[in-house]
């Protein structure tokens, strides 16, 4: 068996449940021997286990196993002792069947489940666990009603030999198979009982006739993983499964940490090194795609758990957020682009009732004349042009020419009905503060330079429109008519009643007016270099820009350098007062002060204008108010505190260039649909909600993600699978209107344990952080942190109750393998900029800016920010010759503990937004000299990192470049810091070593202890 069917191939087995449960007849076509099945399976793609129930999974199972199996000479069972199963079946008396018949209902939900992680992969599964289990066993045997539940667990026994380490111990577990207690006198006497259990496993609702064929398909019994899961599944059946036998499961289920702190001491009693750390970054759980291979890629849509609870009581017990994170335009790697489909005259095929787009999970019936919507199960007619015959298995014969029927991510070309107006051209409008502080910081120069260098790369040539307004105490408009040689400046000083001095030509077609635009950008820095105006008429300028843009919409980039001081939207210095913190007024500082901003944001969204804010001031600029504009228009806030062009220029240059040149979707709306019985209730991110479930996104790009929470509408879900469909209707820069559609399916489960097993830490924290940040806008920071902690504790306690009570785990802390980083990320979120500390820890503006940024970050980027990487590089720099593969070696991330900082080393800390390069006190002077040039001994805050003419410096630059390339959405500016250089070292690095105990915050080990203690206090 092991040789025939190693590892993955086990999979196909799973689907075989479905037919039994839902459509027994489908079984028939698959005679174990048929070559026909072979051909089917070949065009079926390997994955089908995940296919919807009606798809005939048998073909998927592939002909080979059954064939082999029917040949009695091939030993089927995983363990050598198991005889061919064919014979045993006959031998079996009828009893197995009845008991089997009871089984199917239990088994129903699990269909399509992925295998859960092989136990081998789990951390610290102490062997002692096995022992207690044998003691437990007798219990199930005694109670006959449980029998039905148990057979599946038997499937664990035939552990695939691939897992050599575990196959040994496994046989010990046989006793739990209660299916045939009488037949299993002893642990070691496995052979014959085994097949028997398989027999019992058969759910056949039907008569014995299908039996042989099933036998064939079941033959390779080993699917230990998947089946094992089922055993778990039974667990939840109310009352059906006593905890017994659980230990075995337990070992597969979760990881544990022994936390034995001595009360009263500070010593957590934890081995710091053994704590789980996400040193590999964001790991996307693979189960999502494995279960339902036709699902869209997780880079677009991630669920916080890939197992949807079937009842509200289960939801209530799942204390973590339940929902999804959507990154609608995530960048796809080469070769995986989303296929574009044009239905032309047919029109886009959608469900009549729920408006779901046609997708791989719809089923065709009635000889191909009708299709059943997978979301609302309404039977729709297939339009004449879209008709295709069905083959014997009920699949359309033109399947391979219809990407929308086999792929979870597709893009449709939208017909006229999806347009309220012709597709708009890409439009960039710049609103630039030219008051004295802006001039002094050098921001204007960098901005003008960057825009000019990006002109060629602006998307949408030749339709791209462009325009500028500058402002100080007055608002300056620029006529860029193509026939002019130089732009004409018009100054409007009436701020109370702002008007646009010219109907046209303030917004021009860039390809026509290119010369004028270039002249303007060249002269912009010098035009205002002597400006001494300190005022900023931000509100009126914004209104003017709105008036100019309102016809077309587009992207508005605002460069703001001081607190808006004139006209509408005037803001005042709101005291970021220590005394406010800890009171009920605290959150007001983090909310927009003037309703003008929210009102303006609503208007801007209505006219399809997206705002990106670039803020530069060294003083308070009230990002909380300014950021509101970005928040409700699907934009982004870039914050460069105390901007100096010499230092931060590169960062601004890169990020502005990225903002201007990345692929952008215009005038978009997004909706996520889901199956009956569940509903998305709240949405989190930067957007405006147009109706209850329609997100208005004037501009979207690959760096934006949106999170949403899910709730159950009905008390009990009866379906076995839920489907989700995200649809983003947008105008591409090329002027095409398109609909991006992502479809995903997830199983409905009845077991809390399964939900934990399928949990996705990344998505959970994406949602978590958004909830927490929103909480800081309505309450105290303290409260937000407490509620976060409470959620973690509740979730872990629930999990503990699920397993530990009956297993006497005592002082061990247990958590699901899938959520092993739950505590760490929780701690990181606790210490993240928007949430951490109080008055003194973070500047108010910085806190707000970080909050706005984190509300939009995609999962991967967020996790990097929460748990940044720390890399030691001095060894690599000193190595005489560098090979390419060396690079991978040095990219080894270290835990964020200050103990890891060796004073002889050189480290890079990278949180995705900046680098901190840390020089140990005893780092070899060579390195410092080579990297920093002659002034290596100077104070590092005054030194900027530039490339010097030596190998070492070049290598460092190469490393930085590589790190930056891995994620281009933000530019990481290097900060240099030397060990012991206070307070710089503390501010830049030590504060961010989140596992350390710093100031009033807890360290990782202590945090675990704390959480553990709270978990235990029921």
């Amino acid at each position, binding site marked *: 068996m092991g040789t025939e069917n190693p590892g993955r191939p086990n999979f196909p087995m799973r689907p075989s449940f479905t037919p039994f449960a839902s459509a027994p007849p489908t079984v028939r076509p698959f005679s174990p021997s048929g070559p026909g099945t072979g051909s089917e399976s070949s065009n079926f793609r390997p994955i089908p286990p995940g296919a919807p129930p009606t798809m005939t999974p048998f073909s998927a199972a592939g002909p080979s196993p059954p064939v082999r199996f029917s040949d009695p000479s091939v030993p089927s069972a995983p363990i050598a002792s198991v005889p061919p199963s064919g014979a045993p079946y006959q031998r079996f008396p009828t009893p197995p069947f009845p008991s089997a018949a009871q089984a199917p209902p239990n088994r129903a939900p699990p269909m399509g489940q992925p295998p859960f992680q092989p136990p081998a992969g789990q951390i610290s599964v102490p062997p002692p666990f096995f022992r207690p289990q044998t003691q437990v066993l007798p219990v199930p045997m005694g109670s006959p009603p449980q029998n039905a539940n148990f057979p599946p667990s038997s499937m664990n026994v035939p552990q695939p030999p691939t897992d050599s380490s575990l196959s040994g111990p496994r046989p010990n577990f046989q006793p739990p198979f209660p299916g045939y207690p009488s037949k299993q006198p002893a642990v070691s006497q496995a052979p014959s009982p085994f097949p028997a259990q398989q027999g019992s496993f058969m759910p056949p609702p039907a008569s014995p006739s299908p039996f042989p064929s099933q036998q064939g398909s079941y033959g390779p019994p080993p699917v230990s993983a998947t089946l094992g899961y089922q055993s778990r599944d039974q667990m939840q059946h109310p009352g059906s499964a006593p905890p017994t036998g659980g230990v075995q499961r337990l070992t597969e289920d979760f990881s544990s940490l022994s936390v034995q702190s001595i009360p009263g001491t500070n010593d957590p009693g934890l081995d710091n090194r053994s704590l789980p750390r996400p040193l590999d970054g964001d790991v996307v759980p693979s189960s999502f795609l494995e279960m339902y291979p036709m699902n869209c890629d997780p880079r677009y849509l991630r669920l916080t758990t890939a197992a949807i609870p079937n009842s509200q009581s289960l939801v209530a017990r799942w204390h973590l957020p339940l929902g999804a994170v959507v990154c609608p335009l995530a960048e796809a790697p080469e070769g995986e682009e989303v296929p574009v489909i*044009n239905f*032309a*005259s047919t029109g886009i095929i959608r469900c009549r009732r729920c408006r779901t787009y046609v997708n791989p999970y719809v089923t065709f019936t009635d000889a191909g004349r009708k299709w059943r919507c997978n979301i609302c199960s309404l039977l729709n007619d297939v339009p004449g042009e879209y008709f295709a015959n069905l083959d014997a298995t009920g699949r359309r014969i033109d399947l391979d020419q219809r990407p929308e029927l086999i792929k979870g991510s597709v893009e449709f*070309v*939208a*017909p*006229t009905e999806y*347009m309220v*107006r*012709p*597709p708009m*051209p890409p439009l960039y409008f710049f609103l630039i503060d030219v008051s004295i502080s802006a001039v002094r910081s050098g921001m204007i120069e960098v901005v003008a330079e960057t825009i000019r260098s990006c002109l060629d790369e602006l998307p949408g040539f*030749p*339709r791209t429109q462009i325009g500028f307004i500058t402002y100080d105490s007055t608002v300056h408009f620029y006529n860029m008519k193509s026939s002019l040689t130089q732009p004409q400046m018009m100054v409007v000083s009436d701020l109370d009643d702002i008007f646009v001095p010219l109907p*046209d030509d303030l917004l021009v*077609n860039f*390809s*026509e007016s290119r010369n004028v635009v270039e002249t303007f950008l060249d002269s912009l820095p010098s035009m205002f270099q002597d400006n001494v105006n300190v005022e900023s008429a931000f509100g009126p300028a914004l209104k003017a820009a709105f008036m100019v843009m309102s*016809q*077309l919409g587009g992207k508005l980039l605002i460069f703001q350098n001081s607190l808006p001081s004139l006209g509408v939207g005037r803001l005042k210095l709101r005291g970021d007062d220590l005394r406010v913190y800890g009171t009920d007024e605290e959150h007001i500082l983090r909310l927009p002060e003037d309703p003008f901003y929210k009102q303006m944001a609503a208007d801007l969204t209505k006219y399809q204008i997206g705002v990106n804010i670039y803020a530069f001031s060294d003083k308070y600029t009230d990002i909380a108010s300014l950021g509101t504009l970005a928040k409700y228009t699907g934009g982004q806030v870039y914050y460069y505190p105390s901007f100096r062009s010499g230092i931060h220029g590169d960062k601004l240059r890169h990020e502005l260039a990225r903002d201007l040149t990345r692929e952008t979707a215009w005038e978009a709306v997004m909706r996520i649909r889901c199956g009956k019985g569940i509903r998305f209730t709240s949405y989190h991110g930067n957007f405006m909600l147009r109706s209850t479930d329609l997100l208005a996104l004037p501009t979207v790009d690959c760096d934006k993600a949106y999170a949403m929470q899910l709730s159950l509408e009905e008390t009990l879900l009866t379906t076995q699978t839920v489907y989700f469909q995200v649809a983003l209707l947008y105008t591409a820069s090329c*002027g*095409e*209107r398109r609909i991006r559609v992502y479809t995903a399916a997830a199983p409905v489960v009845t077991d809390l344990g399964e939900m934990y097993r399928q949990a996705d830490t990344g998505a959970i924290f994406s949602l978590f952080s958004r909830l927490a940040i929103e909480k800081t806008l309505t309450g105290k920071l303290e409260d937000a942190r407490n509620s976060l902690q409470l959620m973690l504790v509740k979730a872990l306690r629930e999990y503990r109750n699920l397993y530990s009570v009956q297993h006497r785990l005592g002082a061990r802390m247990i958590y699901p393998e899938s959520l092993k980083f739950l505590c760490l990320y929780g701690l990181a979120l606790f210490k993240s900029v928007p949430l951490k500390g109080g008055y003194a820890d973070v500047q108010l503006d910085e806190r707000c800016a970080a909050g706005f940024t984190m509300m939009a970050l995609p999962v991967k980027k967020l996790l990097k920010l929460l748990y940044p990487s720390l890399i030691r590089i001095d060894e690599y720099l000193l190595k005489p010759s560098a090979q390419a593969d060396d690079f991978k070696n040095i990219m080894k991330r270290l835990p964020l503990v200050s103990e890891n900082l060796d004073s002889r080393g050189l480290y890079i800390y990278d949180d995705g937004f900046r680098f901190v390069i840390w020089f140990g006190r005893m780092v070899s002077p060579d390195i410092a000299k080579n990297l920093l040039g002659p002034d290596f001994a100077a104070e590092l805050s005054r030194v900027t990192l530039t490339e010097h003419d030596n190998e070492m410096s070049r290598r460092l630059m190469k490393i930085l470049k590589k790190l930056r390339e891995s994620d281009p959405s933000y530019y990481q500016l290097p900060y240099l810091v030397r060990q012991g250089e206070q307070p710089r070292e503390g501010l830049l690095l030590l504060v961010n070593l989140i596992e350390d105990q710093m100031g009033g915050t807890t360290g990782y080990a202590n945090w675990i202890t704390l959480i553990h203690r709270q978990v235990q206090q029921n």
Partner: protein
Amino acid sequence: MVKMTMIARVTDGLPLAEGLDDGRDLADAEMYKQQVKALFKNLSKGHNEASRMSIETGPYVFHYIIEGRVCYLTMCDRAYPKKLAFQYLEDLKNEFERVNGSQIETAARPYAFIKFDTFIQKTKKLYLDTRTQRNIAKLNDELYEVHQIMTRNVQEVLGVGEKLDQVSQMSSRLTSESRMYADKARDLNRQALIRKWAPVAIVLGVVFLLFWVKTKLW
């Protein structure tokens, strides 16, 4: 002055291009756009064969030309010289055919040639002012004959469909009303029957009653 410009394929009414920021200072631009769309739909059904036509609508006039199965349509003020409007459309047509001529038949998505809007925008500006030397010269140019172009009213044009609607509406009203009439007639019939026989029945009833009373008393 040109208010809006639309280009569509006649065979199926698929819009191909449209002027940028059309209808900027028009109060009810949407309504006119709807009219244009209805007009295109009519054209694709084979109504209005004339290849050049002016259609009055409110204070404005639609001018269109159909050439190579593409309809070029613009909306102008009534006062705007017809001659210039058609010149404008000719200009658009020439350029459009030159740039996109080969792909018109194969275009499968709406606004496939939206890039053309920049040209529309540019040309529109040339025709904005009727008093420029260039436009006056064009006006005086007798080569271009516009007098024979028919002018109709938009209600008339769009009315073809509307009238059909009306007829069907009327006929359906007729059926429903005739059904009502039938019902009423039946009702009347019954009433007449009652009126005819009721006295007889009453008399008979009284007679029987009397008989009954008589037998009872005796």
